[in-house]
Each structure stands twice: as C-alpha cells, then as structure tokens.
C-alpha cells in the first residue's frame, strides 16, 4: 500500500478513535451529567424528575447507545447545547474561530518573515560570528514559552514607553480592520517569536544541506551570481522541511493559543476551552476538543500531502 493510501485510510479510523476518547473522557468526570448541567439546582429535583430528565437526555441508556446517538448528532453538526451560553455548541465555536484563524495566520506570517531570511542568512555565513548570533537568538527563542514572551512584551511596552496593549472589547477584522490589527499585532508577535526561532533553525539546517549539494556547486562553478544561487537554486529545495514545520505549527495554533489569548484577553478558541473547563460546561469542552482535534488532523493530513507532492521519494518509501 502506498504511503498516501495508508495515510488517507487511517484518517477516519483515528478520527473515530478521537471521538470515542472525547466522549468517554467527558463521561469519566466525577458526578452525574444532570448535576453538571444544572449545578446547585440539581439538588432541588425529586428522584422522579431526575429520572425523567435522564430519560429526556438519553443518559439512562447504555454508553454505546449514547455514543451512537451523539455521533449521529455530530454528523448533523449538532454538538449539543452549551450550558454557559445557552446556545448550540457549534455556533459558539464558529463565533470564536475567525479570531483564532486570523491569529494563526498572522503568527505564521511573522514567523516566516523573520525566520526564513534569518535562517538563510545564518546558513550563508556558516560558523561566523553572525551565524553564531542568529543561532543563539533562535535557541533562546525556542526556549522561551510564549506566555513569558507575552508578559515580557507587555512589561517592556508599559515600563519603557508607557503603553499598555489594548485589552478592551475585541473588534473583529471586518468591523474595523485598523483597530483589529492594533489588537492582534502583539499577540501575533508573541506567538510568532518561538515559531520564528523554529523556522530559523530548520531553514538554516536545510539550507546548509542543500548548499553542499553538487548541483549548487555546479551552478556556482558556472558563474551564477551568489544571490541567485541562494534564492533561486538552493532555497526552493530547502523549503520542504520549512513547509512541514510551518504546517504542523499552524495546526497547533488553530487549536487556539490558550495562554496567549488569556494574557491579551482575546476571545479565541483557546480561551473558550479554558472557560468551558473552569465553568464545567462539558458539552462545550467536548465540542471544542473534537473541533480542534479535527482541525489539527486535517491540517496535518494536508501537510503530509503537500510533503509528498514536494518530495516524490516518500510516495515510494516507507512512511511512519
């Protein structure tokens, strides 16, 4: 079986596994679902009322039957009702998703705009002081958790310039683009920081590999200008690992940057999950986790497909 077929055939299986895990995990929460749904008011219910409610929500049925009904609902786009918001879970998620998507895209732009040139620069100056400086910076960048970067940025701005990032009501991009970008730029830089460090390291190492290849040496010996050798001959081939890394990181970011959203008070998907956990809104936790895992898997699948398209050797070789 080719890598592609195997990858595509395991996708629905793994997704099914994810749905079972999420469903079972939420049912392992101590206490019964009715108490979780109604909170302290559940104490006022008579046993008969409790039984009627259990029957209404179908939780008196065996877990396999419950799972089957829930799965059918998921296929119809019905992820249940959020107790906190009093609205369908999918609607709540889709309200938050554009912000998370925008943040992920902006962070990726920051990472590629900084990381790629820095990596290429370092590779062309291998083992010189400037290469060392880029490597040290990248290593520090990779070792700094993004919430620490966020706090340090906020501190530097407030202590150095007396500016505090806008943390008021969030403005969507389509409502007021300028205000929106003003609110999003610092979170994007914060998330892009470690991401840029990874891009720098991987693009430097990929460029070093490619620059020692025979075809690059041939191009150089034919008298092709150095700049053209680097950007036109070497870089396109060095991009394969960068594409993979960026794709995987993008998948992570689509899951919501819980910590950074928390620091900058952004109403994204990450904070939605966190709030749902803190408020014990289990339908919402379940829906969010499933939605995020689905996105993450789809992005990873696309990354794999792009990788195969870029490097045909994988189609024939053994894949993980």
């Amino acid at each position, binding site marked *: 079986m080719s890598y592609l077929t195997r990858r595509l055939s*395991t996708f629905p*299986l*793994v*997704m099914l*596994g*994810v749905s079972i*895990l*999420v469903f079972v*995990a*939420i049912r*392992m*929460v*101590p206490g019964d679902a009715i108490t979780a749904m109604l909170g302290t008011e559940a104490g006022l219910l008579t046993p008969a009322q409790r039984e009627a409610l259990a029957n209404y929500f179908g939780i008196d049925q065996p877990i396999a039957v419950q799972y089957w009904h829930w799965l059918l609902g998921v296929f119809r786009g019905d992820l249940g009702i959020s107790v906190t918001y009093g609205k369908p879970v999918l609607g709540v998620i889709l309200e938050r998703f554009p912000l998370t998507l925008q943040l992920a895209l902006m962070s990726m732009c920051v990472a590629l705009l900084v990381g790629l040139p820095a990596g290429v620069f*370092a590779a062309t100056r291998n083992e010189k002081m400037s290469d060392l400086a880029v*490597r040290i910076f*990248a*290593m*520090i960048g*990779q*070792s*700094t*958790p993004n*919430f*620490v970067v966020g*706090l*340090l940025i*906020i*501190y530097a701005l*407030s*202590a150095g310039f007396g500016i505090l990032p806008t943390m008021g009501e969030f403005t969507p991009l389509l409502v007021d683009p300028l205000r929106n970008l003003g609110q999003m730029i610092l979170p994007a830089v914060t998330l892009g920081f470690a991401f840029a460090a990874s891009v*720098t*390291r991987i693009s*430097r*190492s*990929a460029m*070093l*590999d490619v620059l020692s290849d025979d075809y690059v040496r041939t191009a150089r010996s034919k008298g092709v200008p150095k700049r053209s050798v680097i950007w036109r001959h070497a870089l396109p081939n060095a991009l394969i690992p960068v594409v993979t890394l960026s794709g995987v990181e993008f*998948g*992570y970011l689509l*899951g*919501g940057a*819980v*910590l950074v959203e*928390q*620091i900058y008070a952004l109403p994204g998907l990450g904070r939605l*999950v*966190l709030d749902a*956990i*803190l408020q014990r809104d*289990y339908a919402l*936790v379940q829906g969010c*986790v499933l939605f*995020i*895992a689905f996105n*993450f*898997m789809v992005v990873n699948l696309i990354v794999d497909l792009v990788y195969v398209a870029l490097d045909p050797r994988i189609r024939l070789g053994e894949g*993980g």
Partner: protein
Amino acid sequence: MLRAIVSHPSGRIGGTIVVIYVVVALLGMFDVTPHNPLQQYRIDRLHSPNASYWMGTDLFGRDVASRLMKGVGQSFFVGFCSVTLATLAGTVLGLTAAWFGKAWDGLVMRIMDVLLAFPAILLALLIIAIAGPGTWTSIAAIAIVYTPIFTRVVRGPALSIKAREFVDAARTFGSSRRYILTRHLLLNLVAPLTVQVTLALAWSLLTEAGLSFLGLGTQPPASSLGLMLADSRNLMETAPWLLIFPALAIMISILGFNLLGDALRDIFDPRTRRSAA
C-alpha cells in the same frame, strides 16, 4: 560520555545550566531556602531586591528567592515524575509493539495516533477537566501527552534492531524473550531515549509552567514558577522583579535542557553535527 558532553559547546553550557538547575531544585524541594517560602513579612511587602531578600518580596511579603527555589523544585518534581512515567510507558509499549507486531502493534500505534491527534496542551487540559487541577493531575497529564512520542521513538529503531542478525542469533541460542528485549533491544535504544528524555524534560517544564499559569497546575499557596508569573501580572509595573526572576528561571532552565538535548543528539549521531543549530 561526560567528556563528550564537556567538549561539545552546547553540551558544556547546557550541562552547566542543568546541574545548577538540579541543585537549586533539590535545595528547594528539601526546604533549604534563605527564608521560609510561605512566611509573610508584612512590613516588607513588595520590597525590591536587597541583601536580605535577594530577589525582593511579593505582595504578601514572602521572599521571592525562596519561593523561586521552591517553584524550581516543584517544576523539577513534576517534570521528572511525568517524563519518567512517559519514558517507562512509552518504552514498554514501543518495545512490545515492535516485538509482538500484528494486532498488538496495530492497537498500540492506533491509540498513540489518537493521542497525537490532540495538540499537547489541549490533551493536558482535557485530562485536567476530568481529574481536577493539582500537582498529580499535572504529572499524569504531561506523562500521557508525551507517552506517544516515546512509543514512536522506541518502536521505530526497535523494529530495525529486531531484524538484525544478532537478535536471530540470540533466539537460536535459546535466550529468553525478556533477555532479548532488555539486553539486545533496550540497550541499543539508550541513545535515542536519552536525547528524547532530555528534550521531553524541557517540554514538561514548559507545560507545567503553562498549566500552573492558567491556575490548573500547582495550587496556591504552594509555589510554582507559572503561578508566580500569573501573580506578577497585575504588579509588573510596580514590582518588575516578580516577573523578571521567574521568567528568567523558566527560560534558562528550558534553554539548558534544550542545549543538552541538542549536544547529546550530536554526540550520538555525528551526522547531524554539521547542520545542528
């Protein structure tokens, strides 16, 4: 081995940081701190760093240096326990999957695929949602998150070692399954596992700090670096030391483990040395 680490630039710096980190962590864990980390010196609230309070005091007048040492100890404890659990579980699962193959291999690897389908922090949050926040939940959550990575790291090389002649020879000689698994397979996996353990320690410190920052890890009044950072948020302008020292502690410790991990990878696999950043 030690000589190889010392002669590698990243190994030297990373190793030094890790040794200092472990010493500070042990001092913190065994309460050898300049002050009692929970003692509130109310008259010295929000005191800037001085000879008595090396890193200043917090809003309740508690010594930041002592709390930081305690926090480093706490993060080391969580990191060490979770990575040990993940290594043990991942090694057993990876080895048995590679050895027995067939249905067991399929089952183990599909479960690992399912666990890998979640972004790490999300899976940790899901586990904490079920079990409730706390130190032991953090340990379990981080261990479960990193088990699939160890399983994969072990299974791949174990499969190729299993097919080597010396394993066949050992079977022919009548060596027991346990002997072959532990002596022949496991001993040959020490190199990739050591690298992975070092890097996983860096990630676990990061995850622990993140979970505590969100209020889902270590619970107050116990000290943790993530909690200290969360507490510093509203005071960073008046008392920047509350932010700077824990931030530096997290950054430097993760940097140390990353550098050491990179150095070990180079030492075990010289092919990567040229291109390693």
